[in-house]
């Protein structure tokens, strides 16, 4: 999935994005207009878990405008987002960035794919996790 040589890839730019199925799904699930984004970077600069992401939220919005779904759906970013809503509360254009990220996560989960398995959690095996963590993780990673 991640290129071990870390080469830069070519951006996929889809034409007629309005008629693209994934684009429509993103709009339907998130109810957000990704074309409002003007790439100011405020979402990334406030993001508490940016260091763990492979693409920044700002880049994600750009990829969204281009229609490069493959890169987004393969990214770690969509599962690293902790929905703290810092990006959504600061976005100067009022885009709920976290909802857009959630939409991609939903698309993956609804297709039955997930890269994380809650039951494999090292802490869960130790029986320490509080229900609040488990339920949240199930909802975010298994879509239940």
């Amino acid at each position, binding site marked *: 999935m991640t290129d071990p040589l870390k080469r830069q890839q070519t951006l996929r730019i889809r034409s007629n994005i309005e008629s693209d199925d994934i684009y429509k799904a993103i709009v339907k699930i*998130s*109810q957000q207009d990704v074309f409002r984004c003007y790439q100011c970077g405020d979402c990334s600069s406030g993001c508490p878990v940016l260091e763990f992401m492979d693409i920044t939220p700002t880049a994600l919005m750009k990829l969204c405008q281009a229609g490069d779904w493959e890169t987004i759906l393969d990214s770690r970013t969509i599962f690293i987002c*902790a929905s*703290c809503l810092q990006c959504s*509360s600061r976005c100067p254009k009022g885009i709920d960035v976290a909802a857009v990220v959630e939409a991609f996560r939903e698309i993956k989960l609804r297709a039955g794919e997930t890269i994380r398995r809650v039951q494999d959690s090292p802490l869960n095996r130790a029986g320490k996790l*509080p229900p*609040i963590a488990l339920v949240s993780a199930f*909802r*975010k990673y298994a879509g239940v």
Partner: protein
Amino acid sequence: MEILYYPGCTLKNNATNFEESALAAMKHLDIHLKELDRWYCCGTVFSMAQDNLMLKFGAIRNLIRVAEQEQDRLVTLCSMCYNTLRRANAFMRSDPERLRKVNDFMYLEPQTYDGNVRVMHLMELLDQDYGFERLKEKVVFPLNGLKLGAYYGCMLVRPQEFSIDANYESPDIFERMLNSIGAEPLDFLYRLECCGAYQTVTDPEVTCQRTYAIINSARRVGCEALVTSCPLCAYNLDQMQEETEKLFADFESLPVFYFSELLYLCLTGRFKQEWYPKHHVDPKPLLQEKNLINEVVV
């Protein structure tokens, strides 16, 4: 004053100290928190998928329980429950068609849901209904000299329209409460920053890194303990210190309290024995050092 109260899952097992201390402290203030009948899971996180109503039903059913008891307010202790219930309520209210669909689906419920329940956090109730001034008068054992970091996390202040403080970028409700019980709240860099939340399940290193940063920033300004109102934050900030120590050699631990424990402490001068084991970092030395426990050893 009697008001309906929603405990939520974690207060009934990992965070019993949170619930017990809150109920006991409120009793001292003549506030009776009446547990909601037949409550169940609120869903913990509010799903932002706008096209899937199913994910909000958990929260809605709880709100129907409130309406059933002819009440229009519901108090929560847990920040996450507060956020999820309040947002689910607003989500439904904002669209009559959505409301109709939900009621249609839940036709077996004895009552239709109209979206008129006000979800409040206990801190809001104390501020708006009870008043921190009045709380201050009730304090018998003020927590003088205790330097605390009020950790809001995310769910009390975001999204901005559901923030418990209108000033969501620099709220002060938590600090005002700590002030009224005699403690000294200190402003620290990470007080509004996420703890990593549910990342702790699959990516504990994320939360460890957050815990490291949050606790260090609090230490840097001189905090002697952190205070929180969310059992998930408490888990990540307190229990996860064990893992954090393994990852960061220079990490120094810091006790973490639920705000209700401190309320109980200032009203009674006591900290119940059974709450200590619920803490990973033992708060006892700190409380003793500050002379805050007035326990009579029998």
